């Protein structure tokens, strides 16, 4: 719901009638479920309460006529704890993300959010739904019973973000080997390739031989790209 640019204001000024219709149907089927809604480049984004996520699948498939499940996934809104900018030895090619936690369209109550997209093949409309999940025990209802295609998406979300899906029959690793520890798409999971080796996009990342020798002799490792050993 950022009101910065003209495009966003234009959509705020004249709400899409399809979106209003969908929100109206949603409100009738699940009163009080919608926490907040907004548009992301013209697409409807609706945030619902955690308790209504399970029934939402039925409503989306029935009342909203969204027969097609596009995806289920999650977002970790925690700021990226990553070297970049100054820390990367002036490496301007690596993106530097803001260090404060901000939330996207339709907001969030905390760090983890599950989001899913459903669409109607007959009507041509669609909506993205978001739901907040608790940070300590991320849990939300599974959609497998209504959209069987959610099976793999939820398994992926579980292994990548650690969000459990209540009612999923078979929550096990999808991509990663069984017994893999950690949840790779969480922001605090380091990208090890980047930890052990500086960003390959950095120009002249390796010190010239004489410089490297000087660094070793002087013991001053500040700012050299080849350090990285934490």
């Amino acid at each position: 719901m950022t009101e910065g640019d003209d495009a966003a204001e234009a959509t705020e000024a004249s709400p899409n009638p399809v979106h209003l219709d969908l929100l109206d149907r949603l409100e009738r089927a699940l009163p009080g479920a919608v926490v907040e809604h907004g548009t992301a480049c013209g697409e409807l984004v609706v945030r619902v309460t955690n308790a209504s996520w399970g029934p939402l699948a039925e409503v989306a498939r029935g009342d909203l006529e969204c027969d097609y499940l596009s995806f289920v996934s999650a977002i970790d809104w925690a700021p990226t704890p990553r070297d970049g900018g100054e820390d990367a030895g002036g490496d301007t090619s690596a993106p530097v993300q803001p260090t404060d936690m901000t939330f996207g369209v339709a907001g969030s109550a905390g760090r983890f959010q599950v989001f899913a997209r459903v669409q109607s093949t007959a009507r041509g409309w669609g909506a993205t739904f978001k739901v907040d999940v608790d940070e300590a025990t991320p849990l939300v209802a599974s959609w497998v019973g209504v959209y069987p295609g959610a099976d793999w998406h939820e398994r992926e979300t579980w292994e990548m973000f650690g969000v459990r899906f209540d009612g999923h029959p078979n929550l096990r690793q999808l991509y990663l080997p069984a017994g893999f520890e950690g949840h790779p798409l969480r922001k605090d999971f380091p990208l090890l390739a980047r930890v052990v080796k500086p960003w390959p996009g950095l120009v002249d990342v390796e010190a010239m031989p004489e410089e490297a020798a000087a660094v070793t002799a002087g013991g001053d490792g500040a700012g050299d790209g080849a350090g990285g050993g934490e």
Partner: protein
Amino acid sequence: MSTTEMPSAPDFELERSAMRHLADAQMNVELDTGDMILNLGPQHPATHGTLRLVVRLDGERVIAADPVIGYMHRGYEKLTEFRTYPQITTLINRIDWLSSFANEVPFVHAAEQLMGIEAPARAQYIRTILTELSRIATFVLFLGEMGLQVGALTPAFYGFRDREHVLNLIEGATGGRFHPNFNRIGGLKDDLPWGWVSETRQVMQLVLDSCDQFEDLVVGNEIFLSRTRGIGIIPGDIGTAYGVSGSNLRASGVDWDLRRDGVPYLAYPDLDFKVWTHSAGDSFARYWVRLQETRESVRMVLQLLDGLPAGPVMAKVPRIIKVPEGEAWVETENPLGQMGYYVVSKGATGPFRVKIRSASFSNVSILPWLLRGVYVPDVVTILASLYFILGDIDR
């Protein structure tokens, strides 16, 4: 297999044991032969890559199938968080490597939407042409390879031959046969080379001719028909609930094509084209729909070449690309189905989170449902007819 009702909350163990008892009663009254577990892959020629399929067999019949994926998982969603926007097109080229150009389009489009810039008309047209050429290159290979799966060797050579013609065109325009990396935020790297348009017209005629050839060779072939008709039927409602998209879904009678029904993108609103569907939902329908779509793509390319506007191919874009805070979901009709990127930006030079929705992932997730009860040789034809790319499953 013929049931069209939705499997409610699947209880796999219960279902498997029920099916096993049923199968026992029907087939194993005299000989007590236990179930057999067969590993297809991860290195198996019929799986087109490192898809491993664990199938439980009772004789020749599949009781349960469990695809095991992830042998090629490259973690693109994580990697995008460590790259700037222009660097990411290199990565996403490698998701569906048969139609790399088409992968770039939705991502670049998402970034353009967030930045509020639009590529010039000529760039949009060239993007559309190259997307459709990717589709043709992907589909002619399928049209040939599908014959191979039922024992016909010749069509495969034709498929590769035609794909080569189209890849040469893509290489001529972009410099890359497989990974063009030709899209830029705001347009394209270059304009088309001299003589490319007339060459493309010639190749399109070749493709049309070989579509007729495929029709004669494969579609009219009795063996092909008996191996694909009525095999691997996906009812439309089950397909949509699993997220099956693209030609696979249109072969199940669902008249849904994002080029026509989605948010208008590229030059598709200017084009006159037909969306082909087939009501059968079987392997044959998937072949037939792709054959028609190849012809339709040729028609679209010819229209685009006729209407190609003049002008620049690059909009005015800042030297360092910073995408304003916001979220965008852009989906396109890629050769294998719906491809979408949910891009979350926090105003940096790189995205905060990118959810990559690739077509093959959902198309293959229906396999446990689809393969239940089929015979082993049909497993291979069903896999081939779904037409997936491993990179598009694993990302």
